[in-house]
């Protein structure tokens, strides 16, 4: 004769397996993840599924039944000169920004590390400030400085007897005008991240190396760089992502010009979402391609860093 409790227990075991206490708070668990789960499903996953489905159909025709076209939309977008060019521009921006920003912030982090007084604290506080400024506001400030008629840059050039620069007429200067504000916005933040990486390296590593007679180059190659692999990876992927999805600065500074030399993928997609001549499915196929590149890049680095830091623990 089984007691009531035994019956209940065996029923519970049938439902949840032998670990009868393991899931005793399962309901609370579901309740606590429910809001995030629902919001992410409605506003991220469903839009993504719709986008993927649409990228395989032709929505240009206003027919009742949309036609399945396979990879045609992807072929069309990859055959679009502007879109391909926007990717090439983004790669160029990304290469320059990653290299210059890494070099600048890594070097400046060393300066910060060697300064232990109040001035150092003050400088660390101030250099973060541009990170608070949006691309739109930064573009306004730099448009003011590069104004053709009487901005700061051209004022100096004219006073020196040189020709003024029109950033929206010259390919090289247009690109510079997009890259420089980007560097300005992120420099302080990236320096602080690098600084955090530097001060996390135990001092005795360097002391031991000094005793062994190692010079600064050897210390850099054998201690600093290996200890900061994660910081470098995350900074690089952050810079790559923000460069490849650049939008506000080229949108306001140059609007992609001249001759699409500062057109970026996001700016291209933004302009074409309203373009009635191009099927929105084609534009969406382009947006999916952006995800495949940027998202995959992020995912690979994210999991590489995670597995490495779990090994470290």
């Amino acid at each position, binding site marked *: 004769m089984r007691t009531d409790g035994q019956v209940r227990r065996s029923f519970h075991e049938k439902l*949840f397996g032998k670990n009868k206490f*393991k899931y005793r*708070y*399962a309901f*609370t*668990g579901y309740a*606590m*993840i429910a*809001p*995030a*789960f629902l*919001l992410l499903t*409605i*506003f*991220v996953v*469903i*839009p*993504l599924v*719709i*986008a993927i489905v649409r990228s395989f159909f032709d929505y240009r025709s206003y027919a009742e039944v949309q036609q399945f076209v396979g990879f045609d939309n992807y072929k069309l977008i990859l055959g679009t000169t502007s879109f391909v060019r926007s990717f090439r521009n983004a790669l160029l921006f990304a290469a320059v920004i990653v290299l210059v920003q890494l070099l600048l912030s890594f070097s400046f982090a060393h*300066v*910060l590390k060697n300064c232990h007084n109040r*001035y150092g604290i003050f*400088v660390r*506080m*101030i*250099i*973060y*400030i*541009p990170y*608070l*400024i*949006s*691309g*739109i*506001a930064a573009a*306004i*400030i730099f*448009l*003011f*400085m590069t*104004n053709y*008629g*009487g901005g700061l840059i051209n*004022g100096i050039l004219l*006073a020196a007897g040189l020709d003024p620069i029109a950033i929206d007429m010259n390919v090289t200067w247009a690109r510079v005008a997009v890259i420089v504000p980007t560097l*300005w916005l992120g*420099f*302080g933040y990236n320096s*602080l991240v690098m600084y955090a990486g530097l*001060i996390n390296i135990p001092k005795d590593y360097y002391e031991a190396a000094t005793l062994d007679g190692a010079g600064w180059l050897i210390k850099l190659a054998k201690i600093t760089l290996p200890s900061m692999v994660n*910081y470098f990876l*995350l900074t690089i992927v952050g810079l790559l*992502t923000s460069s490849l*999805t650049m939008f506000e600065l080229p949108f306001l500074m140059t609007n992609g010009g001249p001759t699409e030399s500062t057109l970026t993928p996001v700016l291209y997609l*933004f302009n074409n979402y309203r373009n009635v001549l191009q099927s929105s499915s084609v534009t969406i196929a382009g*947006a999916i391609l952006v*995800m495949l590149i940027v*998202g*995959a890049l992020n995912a690979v680095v994210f999991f590489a860093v995670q597995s490495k830091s779990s090994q470290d623990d």
Partner: protein
Amino acid sequence: MKASTSKKINGAAGTVIMTVVLIVILFPVLWALPSMFKDRSEIFELPLHWLPHQWTLENFRTVFDMPDYNYLLSVGSTTLVAVISVFLSLLVNMMAAYAFARIEFPGRAFFWVYMLSTMFIPGITILLTSVRVVSFLGMLDTIWVLIIPGVASGYNIFFFRQYYLGVPGYMEEAAMIDGLSRAGIFFRIFTRISTAPMVIIGMSVFMSYYNSFLWPVMTITDNTALYQIMQLIRTLNSRYTGRYGVVLAATMMSLIVPFALYCFFQKYIVQGISIAGVK
């Protein structure tokens, strides 16, 4: 002896470099600042001069007296949207993070991967279809379209979960013996011990909402009271092409809210970068 001299030289060089960097960082803002007080005839006048010859408040008057847009209302609604979003975002993401860190439930691994993977989807990829979804839900041109879609974030859940995994378990055991429920533990204990990550994530959520541009442009079209501040600045930039002082005044005043917040939380944020260095 030699070492201390070279240290002093290093220190001096460091101070010089830091001062140069400081000037470069502050220069664009400082250069633009007095031009808000310049008349339209003076703003691009050569030779260059930093301070206006004739101080005027005309630009501010224009910004505040626009017939079809209300600047202060835009700053206010942008700040309100950002503040509400910070609270909702902290609540929703911290709750989920706590469940993933501490509670066993069937399917946990699946839900974890599901939510984490949303963080690799760029906003631009789902921009157009998200607009379809919010339009289907009747949210266009309401305050909710600005707030709700961005509240849950895979990255923020991940960030808080990492933090909670480092919290020792005995605190909960003690609380459970005292008869506190799981939800009680979360609300009474875990929200109090995570001030530092809450400030860091809260600030980053605030900034992403306050500075957002693309999403409001796509979703707020007719309701000018809800025009977000960056959207308004861009509108002013195309409207007052000949009067750059007006655009500058609007831009510079929009920086006051984030700067004030930063001054307030600065200590947490600069220290927090060593914790949040992962992003």
